[in-house]
C-alpha cells in the first residue's frame, strides 16, 4: 500500500521538484535586453530616408501632390484623399516611433556603454555622436512640424505621459534651431563619431558640420517670410560653412538586395505594378524648357520619341505616357537628405532678401541649376545652354518664380521637400484636379488615433492652429 501511495503522489513530487525559477521563465530568449547604441542610429537614418523616398500611397504621396508623378488608375491619393489610407498616420508614426524613438534610445544606451573613467578619445567620440544624434533628431522634427503645425514636442517621447500637449509650432521651430546650434558647437572635428554605422558620412565629423549648417540654412530660409530671426540664422550658418559642391550632399547609398534597396524599387519594380506615370505638369515644363534632365527624369511616351505626362489626379492610360526614368527603378538609387543645389537656391534667395551672404542671386541660382543638372549626369555646357534660355534665365524681378520653378524641378523625386518649397514660394502654379477632395493641401491633418487617444490636446491644437484641415496655413506659409 505504501508503494501505491508513492505512485499516486509521484506527480506531486514531480511538481514540487520543478517549482523553481517561475519568474525567470518569463524572459524572452530570442530578443536582446541591450544592443549597441550605434545600431539605433543606423536604423533611424534608414527609416527616415525610406520615408522620404517611398512612393507607397499609404505613406508618402508628396510626388503626387506636387504633380511630379500621377497614378494611372487608382487616383484617390492624387486627389488628396488622406483619410481612406490614413496617410498622415503612417508618416507621423514613422517619424515619432521609427526615427526619433530610436535616436533617443541610442543616447540612452550610449551612456551605459561608456567605460568609467572615460578615456579622452572615447569622450570626444561620444560628444560627436551625441551631437550627430541631435542633428538627425532636429532634421526629423523639421518634417513633422512643417507638415502638421503644432505637434507634441516638449512632452513627447515620454511613455510616462501618454497624453502629451501639443506645442506651438513656432516655439518648437525656434527650439529646434537652438538645439541645432548647440549640437554644432559640440561637434569636434578632431575626433571620430559613428564610423560605418553612419550611412550618410561614414562618421566624418567635418561633413556633419557642413550638413548641420546647411540644415540650419534650410530651416532659417523656411521661416524667411515671418519675423526677423531668419536673417541672423541664415548668415551665421553660411558663415560657418555650408555645402560647396555635390560632393558634400547628404545621401544614403542604398544596396542591391531587399530590405535595403531604395523603397522606390520596391514600389515600382518589385511590386510588378504599373501605377505611376510622370505628371503632365512636370513633363510639359521639362519639354518646354528643353531641360537636359528630361531623359533622366522620364522615359519616352508611347510615341517612342516624344514625352508626355498623365493628367494629375485623373484616370490615365498607362501605355500612353512617360514613366519615371530608369534611374528611379535602380534599387541602389541614393536617397538625398540635403543637397548642394538646395543650398545654392537658398543662397540666391538670401541675397534677394538682402541677407549678408557672398555672391549674387543669379550666381547662386546658376550654381544651383548647374549642380542639379550635373548631379543627374548632365554637363556644365548643357547647363550653361539651358540657363541661357529666357524661360530659365534668372529673373530677379520675380525671383520667387525663378527659384520656385527651378527648385521644383531640382527637387524631382524629393516630393516632400518640393511640397514645403511650393507652399513657401507659391511657385510653380499648380492646379488641383477637378475631382479633388480638397484644395491642394497646405498641411496634413492630424492622425485619427490622436482624436481617440489624446483628445483634449488634439482639440486644443486644432483650435490653436485654426482648424484641423488641410487648408490651414502653417506659421511660416504666409499667403
Amino acid at each position, binding site marked *: 500500500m505504501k508503494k*501505491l*501511495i508513492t*505512485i*499516486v*503522489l509521484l*506527480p506531486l513530487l514531480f*511538481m514540487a521538484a520543478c*517549482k523553481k525559477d*517561475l*519568474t525567470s*521563465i*518569463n*524572459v*524572452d530568449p*530570442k*530578443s*536582446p*535586453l541591450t544592443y*549597441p547604441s*550605434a*545600431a*539605433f542610429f*543606423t*536604423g533611424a537614418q*534608414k527609416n527616415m530616408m525610406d520615408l522620404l523616398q517611398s512612393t507607397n500611397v499609404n505613406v508618402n504621396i508628396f510626388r503626387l501632390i506636387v504633380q511630379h508623378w500621377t497614378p494611372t*488608375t487608382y487616383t484617390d491619393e492624387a486627389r488628396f484623399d488622406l483619410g*481612406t*489610407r490614413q496617410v498622415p498616420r503612417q508618416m*507621423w508614426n514613422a517619424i*515619432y*516611433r*521609427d526615427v526619433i524613438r*530610436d535616436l533617443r534610445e541610442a543616447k540612452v544606451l550610449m551612456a551605459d556603454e561608456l567605460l568609467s573613467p572615460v578615456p579622452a578619445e572615447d569622450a570626444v567620440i561620444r560628444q560627436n555622436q551625441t551631437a550627430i544624434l541631435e542633428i538627425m533628431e532636429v532634421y526629423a522634427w523639421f518634417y513633422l512640424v512643417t507638415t502638421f503645425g503644432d505637434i*507634441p514636442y516638449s512632452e*513627447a*517621447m515620454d*511613455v510616462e*505621459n*501618454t497624453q*502629451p500637449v501639443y506645442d506651438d509650432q513656432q516655439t518648437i521651430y525656434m527650439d529646434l534651431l537652438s538645439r541645432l546650434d548647440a549640437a554644432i558647437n559640440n561637434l569636434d572635428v578632431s575626433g571620430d563619431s559613428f564610423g*560605418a*554605422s553612419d*550611412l550618410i558620412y561614414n562618421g566624418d565629423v567635418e561633413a556633419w558640420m557642413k550638413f548641420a549648417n546647411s540644415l540650419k540654412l534650410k530651416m532659417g530660409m523656411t521661416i524667411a517670410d515671418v519675423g526677423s530671426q531668419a536673417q541672423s540664422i541664415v548668415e551665421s550658418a553660411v558663415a560657418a560653412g555650408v555645402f560647396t559642391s555635390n560632393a558634400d550632399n547628404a545621401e544614403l547609398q542604398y544596396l542591391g538586395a*531587399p530590405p*535595403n534597396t531604395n523603397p522606390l524599387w520596391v514600389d515600382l519594380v518589385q511590386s*510588378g*505594378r504599373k501605377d505611376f506615370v510622370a505628371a503632365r505638369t512636370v513633363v510639359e515644363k521639362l519639354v518646354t524648357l528643353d531641360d537636359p534632365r528630361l531623359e533622366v527624369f522620364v522615359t519616352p511616351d508611347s510615341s517612342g520619341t516624344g514625352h508626355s505626362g498623365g493628367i494629375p489626379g485623373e*484616370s490615365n*492610360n*498607362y*501605355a500612353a505616357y512617360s514613366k519615371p526614368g530608369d534611374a528611379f527603378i535602380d534599387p541602389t538609387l541614393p536617397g538625398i537628405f540635403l543637397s548642394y543645389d538646395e543650398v545654392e537656391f537658398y543662397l540666391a534667395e538670401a541675397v534677394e532678401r538682402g541677407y549678408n551672404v557672398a555672391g549674387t542671386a543669379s550666381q547662386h541660382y546658376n550654381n544651383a541649376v548647374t549642380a542639379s543638372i550635373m548631379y543627374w549626369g548632365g554637363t556644365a555646357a548643357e547647363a550653361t545652354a539651358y540657363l541661357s534660355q529666357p524661360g530659365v534665365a534668372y529673373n530677379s524681378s520675380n525671383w520667387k518664380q525663378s527659384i520656385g520653378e527651378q527648385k521644383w524641378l531640382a527637387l524631382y523625386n524629393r516630393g516632400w521637400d518640393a511640397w514645403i518649397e511650393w507652399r513657401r514660394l507659391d511657385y510653380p502654379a499648380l492646379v488641383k484636379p477637378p475631382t479633388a477632395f480638397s484644395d491642394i493641401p497646405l498641411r496634413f*491633418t492630424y*492622425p485619427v488615433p*490622436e*482624436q*481617440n*487617444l*489624446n*483628445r483634449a490636446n488634439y482639440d486644443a491644437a486644432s483650435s490653436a492652429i485654426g482648424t484641423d*484641415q488641410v487648408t490651414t496655413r502653417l506659421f511660416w506659409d504666409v499667403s
Partner: protein
Amino acid sequence: MTFHMRKLSSLFAMLMLLSAFAYGQTRTITGQVKDGRGNPVPFANILVKGTTTGVSADVNGNFSIDVSNDAVLVISSTSFATREVPVGTSSTLSVTLTEEGGLQEVVVTALGVTRTRNQVPYAAQKITGEEVSQTRTSNFIQNLSGKVSGLELRQSNTLGGSTNVVIRGVKSITGNNQALFVVDGIPLDNTNAKSANQATGRGGYDYGSAAADINPDDIESITVLKGAASTALYGSQGGNGVILITTKKGARGLGITVNTGVTVGRYDKSTFAEFQREYGGGYGGYYEDPTGFFLYRDIDGDGVKDLVTPTSEDASYGGRLDGRPVYQWDSFDPLSPNFGKAYPYSAPANDPGEFFQTAVSSNQSILVSGGTETGSFKVGYTRNDDKGILPNSKIAKNLLNFGGSYNITSKLVASATVNYSNINGTGRYGTGYDDKNLMTNFRQWWQTNVDVKAQEAAYEREKRNVTWNWVDPSDLTPIYWDNPYFTRYENYETDTRNRVFGNVNLTYSPLDWLNITGSVAHDGYDELQEERQAKGSVTTPSYTRINRNVMGTNYNLVATMDRDLSEDINFKALLGTNVRKERRQFISATTNGGLVADRIYALSNSINPINAPLEADERREVWGNFAGATFTWLDMLTLDATIRNDQSSTLPEGDNSYWYPSVSLGYTFSKNLSTLDWLSYGKLRVNYAQVGNDAPVYSLTDVYTAVTPFGASSIGSVQGTRANTALRPERTKSYEFGLEMAFLKNRLGFDVTYYNATTFDQIFPVEISRSTGYNAQFLNAGNLRNKGVELSLFAVPVQTRDFSWNINLNWSKNNNTVEELYPGIDVITLGTFQGGISINAALDQPYGTIRGNDFVYTEGKRTVGSNGRYLMTSESNYDIGNMNPDWIGGITNSLRYKDFSLSWLIDVRKGGDLFSLDLYYGLATGIYPETAGLNDLGNPSRNTIANGGGIIMPGVLADGKPNDIRVSNTNYGSYGYSYNPAAAFIYDASYVKLREAVLTYSLPQSIFDGSVFKGIDISLVGRNLWIIDKNIPYADPEENISSGNLQGYQGGAYPTTRTMGINAKIRF
C-alpha cells in the same frame, strides 16, 4: 503487485498493460438497462458511485462491471432519469430507467466530475457526440452552431478554415476570447496560427482551429460550461468558458462501429457575385480609340488601327460587349487558338462561378471497443479526405485514438488515452486582400469579358502564367492578377500538422468515498507550413517555410470525496493541485528578392542571401491549487463553493499569485411541489464567481529587436509595445441566475439563465499616442461587461412507440459594453482595415464598433454636393456599424417514425453589421449588374449624359430638396468607393439558415439475428442547405476572414459550400 509497478515506468508499457492483461480480484456483475416499455436502452453509462470507474452498456443495453459488494451503481443515459442501484449480492441486474424528456440528467462538470442534475447549480448544457458527428463534417466545432445557447460561432467558408467560438461574449479587449476545449481532462490548444495581417484581411492563410483535430466519432458527449462559477476550477484557462468533451469508453465485450460516407458540395450561388454582361474590361472612356474604351493599335499590320482590350485594367467599365471584333488577352498568346485574331467582344460563356468545382469529402472511421472484468479499451481510426470547391485544394486527416483502463486492484485503476492526428493540407484558400485570394480578384477586380474556362485552357496548355491581365499587348507580363489557375496550381501552400495528445491517470480509492487521482496530460504538435509564389507571378517569387512547435503539459493531483454525512446530507469535496507548462516555438524563413531556379521551393533557391528567419520561443508556467466543497440536502438544495489560487510565470514576482472564489446555490423546488401533476421538474440556480488571469508572456521586460543589417552595419530597433513591470492579475466577476422547469411529464421544458460578468483590470497593450514613440503600452486597464439571457426550450409534441417529435430551441442575447478604457482614452482601435475601416473598443459602446467615413446627412437624408456626388465626411472616425448580433438562436426538429428519423436545424442570427470590401471595390469597378443597365430615363446608364445616360444619386441637395443632378456613370466609381463613403458598404449580417438536415434509416433489428451485425444505419445528410433569408447581396453574412476578435469585415469572401452526402454506420 511490484511486477506491475515496474511496468508502469513508461507510458508505452502502461498501454500494453492496460490492453493486454485481464487480471483482477473483484466480483463481476452483468446486467441490462431497459426503458419503461421493456426495450433495451443502448449505451447507458454505468458508473460506480464515488469513483470514476465506469462502463457503457452496448447497443442492447447489456453491460458488465467489476465491483465490490458494497458498491452502488449510478446508471444514466440521455433522456432518462439517472438511477442509483446498490449491487447487493446478486451477479445479474436488470435496471429500468424512466424517460425524462429533453432535459439531461447526468452532467459532466469541471475536472470531469459527474453530477446529477439536481446537484448542478450553474449553467451547463450537454449535447451528444451524435449531434456533432452525424453530418460528417471534418470540423466538428462547426456542428455546435445553433445547438447551445450562449455560444456564438462564426465559421469561415474556406476549406479547413477556423471557427470562432465565443461563449457569453467577448471578455478580453485584445486577448484571446476563444472557449477552452478540454478532452478527457486534457486542455487542448486551439490556436489559430496566423499573422496579424491575416486577421486584418491583408492576405495569408487560415490554417484552421487546432481543436478540429478531435475525432468526432470518438465523442461521447459535450458539456458546455458557460459561466465563471462552472469553470472556476480550471483557473484562468477556463475564463472564456469550457467545452468539455468526453470520449467514448470501452464497454464489456467487443463492439465495432464502422462509418463510411461520402459528401459532395456545390457553392451556393446566392453567396457569390453576379456579373453584368453588357460591358467589358476597362476603367472608363479614356484610352486610345475614338470611343476611348479600347487600346487602338495596328495589330495585324494592315496599316489600320484595331480595337484592343485594355488588358491592364482590372475593372469592367469598358467597351460594350456588342460582338465587335476585338483583340483580347489571348490574341497575344502564341499558343492560343485565338492568337493573332480579333474575335467578337461578348459576354463569356463561363463567368467566375464556373471556377468552382464540386467539393468531395470522404469519411471512413472505425471504432473498436471492448472490455473484460478488469479492463477496457478502445481503438479508433478515422480517415477524412476533403477536396474543396477551388482547384487543387485538399485536406487529408488521419486520426488515431486509443484509450484503455485497467483495474490493478479493486482500489487502484490505471487508465490512459493517446490520440494522434496527422493533418495534411494542400492549397488552402488564400484569404483577405491578396493575389492568392481569387475572391478578391473575382468580386472586386475582374474583367467581365474574360471567360474563366479559357483561362483554364491557357494554363493547361502552357503551364505558365498566361493571364488576362497583361501590362500591355506589347508587354506580356502580368500587372495585378495572375491567371487564376496558375494561382491555384503554382502559388499554393502545403501544410502538415502532427499532434499527440493524451493522458495517463492513476486513481486510488482507499475508501469507498475517497478517490485520489494523479494524472499527466499532454498536448503537443509540430506544424510545417510552406508557402510558394512561382516565378512569373505578379508578386515576387518566393518560398516561405514556417515551423511551429506547441506543447502543453498539465500535471494534476486531485483528491475527491463523496460521502453521505447523514441520511439527508451528501457532502462532496475536492482538493487538488495543477501545474501547467506551455511552450510555443516558431521559426519562419523566406527567400529574398526572388527565386533562381523555376519551381524549386527551397531557401537555398533565393536570389539574394536570405534575411535572418523570425524566431519566437514562448514559455509559461502556472501553478494552481484548488479546493471545492458541495453540500446537498435532501437531494434538493445544493451549496457549492470553490476556491483556486494560481501563481503564474508571466506576472511580476511578488504579485504573481492570485485567489479566486466561487459560490453557487441550487434549489430543486419541484421536490417541494410533488403534488403538482403538471410540474415535472423545477430548479433555481444562483451563483457568483471570480476568475483571475495572468499576462501575455514577456510583457514585463522591454527588449530590443535586431533588424536585418544594412550591409555590414547592424540595426537595432525599439519594440512598438512598451513593457510594464507593475502588472497585476486581471479579474472577471460574474453572477448568474438560472431557472430550469419541465412540465407535463417532461414533455415541455425550459432552462433560462441571466448572467452578468465584468472583466476588469485587463492586461493588454493599450494603444497610446505615437508621439510617445510607442504604439502601445502594457497596462492594467479596461472594463468590459457582458450581460445576457440564454434560453433553451424543449418540447415533445408527440411521443408514441412508433412516432416521436422533439423540438429543441436555443436562443441567446448578449449585451456587451466597454465600460472603461484608460483615463483620457475614448477608443482603442483593435484593427485597421482596407477601405478606411477600423474595428474598435469605444467607451460606453459594445465591443467591436466599426468606424469609417460617413455620408453627410441633411435631416437624416444623404446629402449630395453641387457636383451631384455624395458629400462624405473627410474623417474616417464615424461609427458606422457594430459587429455584435442582437441575438442568435437555433431550432432543431427531430422526427422519428419506426426505423426512420429526420432532423433539421434552422440557425438564426439577428442583427450585427459587416463591412463589405467586395462591394466597396466591386461596385466601383463595375462588376455587378446594378452598375450597368438602364437609368431612370430608360437609357443605358453608362451612356454619356449627352447621350441620355448618367444617374441621379438618391438623396437631397444641401438645401434639402431632392437631388436632381445627373452624374456620369461612364467611368468607374459611381456606385463604389471613391464616390461613396465606407458607410455605404455596411450591411446587416442577419441570416436564417437551414443549417443541417439528417434523414436516417436504421435497418430493422430483426434482420441481424444470427449475423455478425448489430445494426446498420443509413443516413442522408446535408449541411448549409439553404440560406432562407439574408440582407447582404452576393455573399454569406457569416463568412469572415478568420477566427479571432476582429469580426464584422468581409473582403474576398468565399461562397458557402452546400454539402449533401450519404453515410452508413455499421455496428458489429
